[in-house]
């Protein structure tokens, strides 16, 4: 029997990359999934973003594990759309026990004719989107009265500012990912009396489309100092999405039942350097 049998997980950014990996990993442990993704391009982001086909692929892979999944295209910046997605999922799957605020973007390497617009988009998705994600699901979890577990995806850039270069993209990313730690700690206090745990994970660079793309590759090649953003202590260049999924699967399981308010790096020693 899986560690998450009978539970339902609400996952944002679930079309591909880490989000899809989380959906599959949790489904393997028995969870059903409410999967949300924008599935559209944003103008301030140069690398190709996820598509409806990607989200359909996540659904196919979860269903292949004999688990149920409800998918919705929604923007995490749009709280009302996110609420509808969550409500639709709960109507079909019955409940929500786990929330993974995973959706995120990186504008590093995208030309910035208007840095303020880049700032707004990155803060909107990576910080405000996380706030929305928790706020649409937490009341339902409180009402259920059976506790729960929330994991916010921050970054090594939520713990250090290494690689900072003054651009809207890098500055906003670090600010948003540090801000997620503030959300995590505040939510942990808010929800602890309801036995709902809140933690954050801090991955180093992972082999996903947000990192492995021509835009970022060219930018890193042209900005050697910023390449320090991805220099690990252990002999591994990029970790795999499943490494973050494994950490999350442990955090949300009963094996982590008294772990809350924790910033957990999954970073091959990046932040301890």
């Amino acid at each position, binding site marked *: 029997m899986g560690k998450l049998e009978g539970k339902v997980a609400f996952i944002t950014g679930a079309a591909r990359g880490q989000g899809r990996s989380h959906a599959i990993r949790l489904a393997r442990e028995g969870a059903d999934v409410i999967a949300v993704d924008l599935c559209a391009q944003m103008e301030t982001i140069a690398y190709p973003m996820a598509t409806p086909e990607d989200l359909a692929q996540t659904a196919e892979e979860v269903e292949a594990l004999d688990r149920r999944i409800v998918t919705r295209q929604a923007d995490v910046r749009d709280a009302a759309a996110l609420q509808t997605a969550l409500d639709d999922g709960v109507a079909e799957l019955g409940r929500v026990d786990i929330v993974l605020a995973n959706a995120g973007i990186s504008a590093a390497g995208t030309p910035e004719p208007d840095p303020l617009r880049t700032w707004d988009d990155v803060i909107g998705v990576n910080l405000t989107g996380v706030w929305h994600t928790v706020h649409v699901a937490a009341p339902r979890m409180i009402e259920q009265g059976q506790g729960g577990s929330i994991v916010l995806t921050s970054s090594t850039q939520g713990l250090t500012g290494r690689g900072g270069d003054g651009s809207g993209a890098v500055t906003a990313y670090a600010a948003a990912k540090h801000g997620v730690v503030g959300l995590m700690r505040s939510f942990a206090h808010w929800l*602890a009396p309801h036995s709902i745990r809140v933690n954050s994970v801090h991955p180093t660079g992972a082999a996903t489309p947000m990192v492995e793309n021509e835009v970022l590759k060219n930018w890193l090649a042209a900005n050697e100092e910023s390449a320090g953003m991805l220099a690990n202590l*252990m002999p591994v260049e990029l970790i795999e999405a499943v*490494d973050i999924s494994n950490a999350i699967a442990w955090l949300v399981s009963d094996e982590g039942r*008294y772990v809350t*308010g924790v910033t957990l790096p999954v970073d091959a020693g990046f932040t301890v350097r």
Partner: protein
Amino acid sequence: MAGRVEGKVAFITGAARSQGRSHAVRLAQEGADVIAVDLCGPVESIQMYPPATAEDLAETVRQVEELDRRIVATQADVRDSAALKTAVDEGVAQLGRLDIVLANAGVFEIQPSLELTDEAWREMIDINLTGVWNTCKVALPHLVDNGGSIVITSSTAGLKGTPNTIHYTAAKHGVIGVMRTLANEFGKQSIRVNSVHPTGVDTVMIQNPKTWGLFTPDDPEPNREKFAELFETLHPLPVPYVDPVDISNAILFLVSDEARYITGVTLPVDAGYTIR
């Protein structure tokens, strides 16, 4: 189904009872063999709870063997690096390898700072800080060729100042320095080093009249129930303390391949104590 640490060998100090025994049993359940060490004897400045015994260590052996895993158990003092080296070398000779190191042995005592004797300070630092380093030092030569995973047991007192335990708090902060240094020095050799930071764990180390009394100073008859009520107020989550297995489960995750890229991390298992 293969266990999460199948075929691995774990060196565990303070393995006679409580958290150490729980770690030995939990890792054995997931397929590991064990090299177990414990002092099984008294420490002069530690008076508020009884020391582990040779019988306790024998019980750990029995429980691991009942799971069909092998265990080599030795009575040794973590302050004595030569004795510790003999224990781990002998264990590796018998079990064939070493993959996991749990520097768990530790003692606890409560004393207002200005009443602490030089001797009590020294014993605490010797066991809870130098003992951790000794454990890593004798084990590392067995890990350098194939990598491995070390978990040092610190405490919430390794992350926050805690009154009336200055020697304990200093030692538990100090082991974070050991952890971070070794993580950096041996990262390239794929040796991961992390620390866990439990809040109060439901063992004899906190379940004793002196600890109860610290939380109910005006009560002539402190007891487990009154202590639980007050200790719970330290935690955002509605629990008074955690169980040994909760620490074991965190350690099992850290030493398993699921955490293959987690190193240099201070992991609280503390029901939110450190964010309060």
